[in-house]
C-alpha cells in the first residue's frame, strides 16, 4: 500500500456497520493524556504541549460529524498533533498562549522530566521530523508499523526505514546500543 493509499485509508475509513459512534466527549477524555504526551515529546514545550493538544481536539470537535465516523479517529488526531508539534510557528504560538493563561492564573506547565529522561527526548527531537514522529509513535504510543503508517500517511516499508535510521542515530547520540528489532 502506498503512502497516498494510506492517507485515503485514514481519512475515508468509514465503517457502515458501526451504529453506535463514540461521542466526542468520550474520545476527548480517553485520548487527552496521550495527546499531551505526544505534543510534549515532539515539541519539547512544557508550556505549550497542552495547548497544541487542545488545538487538535478543537479541530476534531469541529469536524466530529465526519471524523467520529473514521474507524480510528485517534490516527487523525495524532497526525494533526505530530505535524503541529514540529512546526516552529505553531509551537511558539502555543507556548505564548499557554504563558498568557498561566499568568492569568489558569494554567500550569507540565512538570519537568528528570535530566536523564529529558536527554532522551531532546535527542528524539533532534532527529529529522519524520524519524522523531516514528520514534514517538512506536515507543510512547506503542503502535505497530502498520498503525504508524496509517497515522503519518506513509507506506509500511518507509516507516520501517525511518525507524531503523532513527534508532541508529539515537544510539549514536545517546551512546547506547540498539536491539535490531524492526516490528
Amino acid at each position, binding site marked *: 500500500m502506498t503512502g497516498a493509499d494510506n492517507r485515503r485509508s485514514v481519512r475515508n475509513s468509514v465503517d457502515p456497520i458501526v451504529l453506535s459512534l463514540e461521542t466526542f466527549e468520550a474520545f476527548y*477524555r480517553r485520548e487527552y493524556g496521550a495527546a499531551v504526551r505526544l505534543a510534549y515529546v515532539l515539541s519539547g514545550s512544557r508550556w505549550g504541549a497542552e495547548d497544541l493538544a*487542545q488545538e487538535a481536539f478543537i479541530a476534531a470537535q469541529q469536524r466530529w460529524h465526519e471524523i467520529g465516523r473514521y474507524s480510528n479517529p485517534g490516527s487523525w488526531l495524532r497526525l494533526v498533533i505530530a505535524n503541529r508539534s514540529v512546526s516552529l510557528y505553531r509551537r511558539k504560538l502555543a507556548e*505564548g498562549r499557554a504563558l*498568557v493563561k498561566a499568568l*492569568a492564573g489558569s494554567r500550569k506547565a507540565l512538570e519537568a522530566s528528570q535530566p536523564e529522561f529529558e536527554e532522551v527526548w531532546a535527542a528524539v527531537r533532534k532527529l529529522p521530523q519524520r524519524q522523531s514522529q516514528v520514534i514517538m509513535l512506536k515507543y510512547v504510543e506503542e503502535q505497530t508499523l502498520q498503525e504508524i503508517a496509517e497515522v503519518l500517511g506513509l507506506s509500511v516499508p518507509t516507516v520501517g526505514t525511518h525507524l531503523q535510521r532513527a534508532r541508529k542515530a539515537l544510539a549514536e547520540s545517546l551512546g547506547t546500543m540498539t536491539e535490531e528489532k524492526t516490528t
Partner: protein
Amino acid sequence: MTLETRLSAATDELRQRTSDLVPPDLPGRREGFPYAWIAVGLGVLLASFILWPSPISEQSLASDTSRDTYTDEFGRVWYATDCPSADVLLVGSADGLPMKGHTSFERVQSYVGDGGRASVVPRNGQVWERLGDGSISVTHVDDYMIEVTINDESECPQMPISNNGIPVAFRLVGD
C-alpha cells in the same frame, strides 16, 4: 543499557508525570446540535455588525502619549513591550491587527482572570472589519488589550501573541 531500555524508562516516567492530567473544557464544547450553535454564532455576529456602535466611548481612556512606540521599515507602528519579539502592532495592515469589536473593554475584561498577573490596559490602535461589499476596512479606535507582568525575560514569547483575538503586551515586574 540499550536504546530500547532507555526509551522505555523515559516513556514510563513521562506517563507517570502526565497521569493526573485533567482535560479542561474546550471552548464551546457541546455534544449534539452543532449546527444550531453555529447558526446562533452567525446570528450574533451578524447582529453585532449591524448594531455595533461607533468607536468605544464610555470606557475610553485618554491615549497614553508617554508610551514607547516605534515605526518599522514597512511603516508599521508598534507598541514596544518588555519582550521585543512580542511587541504589539498598533498601525499596519489588517493581517496583524485585531478585528473590530474584539478589543472592547468588556470583551478584554472578560478574558482577564481575577488574581492573576493579567490586566486590561489601553491599546488605542487600528482594527479591521469586513464591509458589506466584502472589502476590508481599517480604522483607528480607542480600544484595549491584555497586559501581563512577567518576572524575567526568559518568560518572553518569541512572537506577537494574541489571546482570543486580543493583543497581549508583556511587562517586566518592577518596570
